[in-house]
């Protein structure tokens, strides 16, 4: 069964948690990325996400494999939604279970930061007075892979 995927359907926290729940785990950490209304005083009406889906799922799986190597006995599931998302909708969920809590916090943080670097997903902000694809603007740091990620 897939543990990383892109979908145009609403994401649901409990089913993600279920995917990583197991007897060996003493901690389950969920990161939920939602659509924010105000960014530096600017009001967002809605967001539009787009992905290079096949490559994005592959890159998410690579992140999961990195996490497998970095933290002992981790179980992770990552899902990202694309299409039109309204304010407060969930764009991404990362669920991580580990035997001890420190690892679950760390692995979860690692997953979202890596996603923002190497997974081909883009968001377009729609404001009252315009729209723009976010990428190298001030709002987010530029998502450019490190040299060693280019094989």
């Amino acid at each position, binding site marked *: 069964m897939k543990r990383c995927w892109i979908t145009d359907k609403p994401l649901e926290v409990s089913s993600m948690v279920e995917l990583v729940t197991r007897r060996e785990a003493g901690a389950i950490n969920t990161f939920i990325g939602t659509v924010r209304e105000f960014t530096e005083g600017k009001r967002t009406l809605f967001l539009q996400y787009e992905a290079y889906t096949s490559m994005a799922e592959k890159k998410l799986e690579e992140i999961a494999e990195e996490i497998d190597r970095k933290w002992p006995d981790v179980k992770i599931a990552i899902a990202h939604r694309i299409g039109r998302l309204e304010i407060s909708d969930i*764009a991404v969920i990362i669920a991580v279970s580990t035997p001890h809590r420190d690892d679950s916090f760390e692995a979860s943080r690692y997953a979202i930061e890596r996603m923002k670097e190497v997974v081909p*997903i883009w968001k377009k902000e729609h404001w009252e007075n315009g729209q723009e*694809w976010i990428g*190298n603007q001030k709002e987010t740091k530029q*998502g450019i892979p490190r040299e060693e990620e280019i094989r």
Partner: protein
Amino acid sequence: MNRVLFFAGLRERVEKEELEIDVTGRTVGEVKELVSEKYGLDQIQSCMTAVNEEFALNDMKIEEGDTIAFIPPVSGG
């Protein structure tokens, strides 16, 4: 033949999701220049390129059947 894919702002600029062109034997950098000139896409120079869903550098040579995708700076999450 090769498929060339565009996403996000590039796709809107080109007004196409993909092109079928023959760039076999050319480098990634040459393909960038070719597409940039044809569509006036200066921003393609700051994009990553993926060949068959893996990031590729400008000196990589394209082979028959390869799929080339231009990847603007990502902003998921």
